[in-house]
């Protein structure tokens, strides 16, 4: 859509270019055929000299070529020609003081136009897509347009610039060509440049500007012209002219204000109506959305129910064959151990150990799957208290291990007590397990003051792990050590991650092999 818009404006530029060229061509024809009226327009007006006619013709064609993008490969040639034209214009201006050229070559005033125009066109060619320069081009072309219009206005008032002076006046068709070329350049700057942008579109300011600019033109032109008309042609009293003019201008002003008010009101009405439509659309969308959410929720509820019955089946049905395997291998041991050699007895032992592990795995899996089903109740939770309870429990296991706990008192967090208990239990169990090969296990729990926000840590001096595998740490069934080194199901930390995901918190770890691991966690709400 943007593209088609700029193509539309490019077409306008082409039309303006052709129009200016045609007027200039007419003047040239006038000079060639001797029908000077073609170069003059009015019988008593100054004719357009040959040099400006050639320049207007060339510039009009250039605008056309540039806007149609026919020979864009030759743009640098165009730039060169424009540079030459600006030099020629400079010469025309300076000749007023140098007197090298014949007096009738061109008016220095039209020289000023050519210079400005050529430079502006050059800027456009050198920086075709730069917004800043496009704005400059549009402003400059607006300036040259006004400049050209002032010549036309002077003719309307019957007092062309510099008539009867020594300096050559600008022809009326020269003024018209200037305005046409400037408009062409203005449109080539594109609809996004500052001048056109302020005019087009549905914005109220652009709409007002569209109304007010033509009306002021009409007011100024008609006001001035009528003044001239009454004074010079009908020759009535000057004060009557002034009062008539005031009447005319104030009448037009009333018209302008009326028109603007209408525009603004129509516009706000339009916006209001569009909003009503939009509101209705939003309501419709919301309704659809609610319906969709409802459907999704019921699907989710049923899939959650499915999950619940699944974990129920797992806990109930997977467990009983396991009990069978364990029970009957125990029976085998008890009733037939005297008929088995050591190897056979070891096999039985292995079967039972593996069965136990499978049982633990099922239990942990069920705990993990239940996490997502429990409801979260947010409250202030005393983490230090939970940690001390865990400390007591671990010490009561009476493993003969030397354990030291360093628990910072009074640490609280906003979260769900049950879930945080599960997480801390798993984290402490983890530390307890991985410090089992140390002479003395030191497990610390506290608030890390070096980090921004409330970041808690659980630090141990255990086996640690290689940080290269840190990405796998919280995955279910992922383990960093062999069963022989440290037995486990690989679900504990997945459970911890699940807790912090549900509580919208974060958990991460830092570790060094042989030195220990530190787990950090933080809550979003703190």
């Amino acid at each position, binding site marked *: 859509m943007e593209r088609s818009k700029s193509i539309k404006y490019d077409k306008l530029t082409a039309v303006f270019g052709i129009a200016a060229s045609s007027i200039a061509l007419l003047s040239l024809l006038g000079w060639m055929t001797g029908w000077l009226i073609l170069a003059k327009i009015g019988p008593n007006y100054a004719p357009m000299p040959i040099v400006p006619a050639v320049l207007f013709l060339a510039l009009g064609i250039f605008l056309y070529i540039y806007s149609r993008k026919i020979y864009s490969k030759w743009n640098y040639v165009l730039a060169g020609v424009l540079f030459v034209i600006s030099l020629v214009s400079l010469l025309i201006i300076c000749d007023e003081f140098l007197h090298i050229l014949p007096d009738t070559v061109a008016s220095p005033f039209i020289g000023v136009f050519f210079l400005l125009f050529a430079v502006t066109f050059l800027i456009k060619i050198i920086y075709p897509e730069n917004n800043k320069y496009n704005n400059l081009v549009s402003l400059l072309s607006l300036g040259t347009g006004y400049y050209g219009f002032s010549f036309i206005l002077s003719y309307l008032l019957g007092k062309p610039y510099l008539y009867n002076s020594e300096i050559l006046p600008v022809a009326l068709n020269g003024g018209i060509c200037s305005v046409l070329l400037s408009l062409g350049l203005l449109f080539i700057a594109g609809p996004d440049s500052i001048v056109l942008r302020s005019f087009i579109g549905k914005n109220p300011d652009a709409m007002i500007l569209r109304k007010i600019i033509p009306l002021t033109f009409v007011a100024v032109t008609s006001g001035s012209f009528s003044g001239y008309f009454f004074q010079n042609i009908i020759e009535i009293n000057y004060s009557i002219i002034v009062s008539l003019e005031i009447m005319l201008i104030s009448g037009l002003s009333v018209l302008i204000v009326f028109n603007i008010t209408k525009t603004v009101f129509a516009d706000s009405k339009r916006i209001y109506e569009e909003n009503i439509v939009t509101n209705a659309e939003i309501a419709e969308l919301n309704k659809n959305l609610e319906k969709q959410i409802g459907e999704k929720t019921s699907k989710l509820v049923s899939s959650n129910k499915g999950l619940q019955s699944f974990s129920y089946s797992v806990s109930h049905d997977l467990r009983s064959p396991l*009990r069978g395997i364990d029970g009957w291998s*125990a029976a085998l041991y008890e009733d037939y151990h005297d008929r088995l050699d050591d190897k056979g007895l070891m096999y039985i032992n292995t079967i039972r150990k593996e069965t136990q592990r499978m049982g633990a795995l099922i239990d942990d899996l069920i705990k993990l799957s239940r996490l997502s089903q429990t409801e979260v109740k947010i409250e202030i939770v005393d983490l230090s208290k939970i940690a001390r309870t865990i400390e007591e429990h671990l010490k009561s296991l009476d493993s003969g291990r030397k354990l030291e706990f360093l628990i910072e008192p009074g640490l609280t967090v906003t979260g769900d007590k049950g879930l945080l208990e599960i997480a801390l239990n798993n984290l402490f169990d983890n530390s307890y397990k991985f410090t089992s090969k140390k002479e003395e296990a030191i497990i610390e729990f506290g608030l890390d003051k070096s980090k921004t926000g409330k970041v808690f840590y659980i630090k141990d001096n255990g086996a640690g792990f290689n940080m290269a595998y840190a990405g796998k740490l919280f995955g279910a069934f992922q383990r960093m050590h062999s069963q022989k080194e440290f037995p486990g199901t690989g679900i504990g930390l997945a459970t911890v991650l699940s807790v912090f995901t549900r509580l919208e918190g974060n958990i991460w770890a830092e570790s060094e092999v042989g030195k220990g691991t530190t787990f950090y966690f933080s809550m979003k709400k703190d």
Partner: protein
Amino acid sequence: MKEKIILLVEDNCSDADLTKRAFGKSKIKNELVVLGDGKTALEYLQCTGEYAGRDKTDLPIVILLDIKLPLVDGLTVLKIIRNDIRLRRLPVVMLTSSNEESDIAQSYDNGVNGFIRKPVDTARFEEAILAFGLYWLLVNEPPPIS
């Protein structure tokens, strides 16, 4: 007087045999009657159907009831027992693999006397059976028969 029986309602043969074995290894000498589904268990207790001719006063000293059973599930069996004027005082203990909180809660809501979750570890299972037998057969005073 003849020793009262222990009624085990369990559909899993392996589990039933393991329980039998555990009882056999303990000092408990009461006969263990094993029934495979809830419907048969109710017929046995109410002396109907297959067991129509059974002595109505011959009630088990304790019932071990699995929750997941064919035909009539454990919880329904429990509810029917508690609503039967002749059976309602019978000690019923759930013996099951489930540790589903809702199962435990519903069992107690319907007046169960105990809930044992069968551990995978056979040694611990046998411990549990032993403790159970000692308690219900020796320590506990059985309800009077109405």
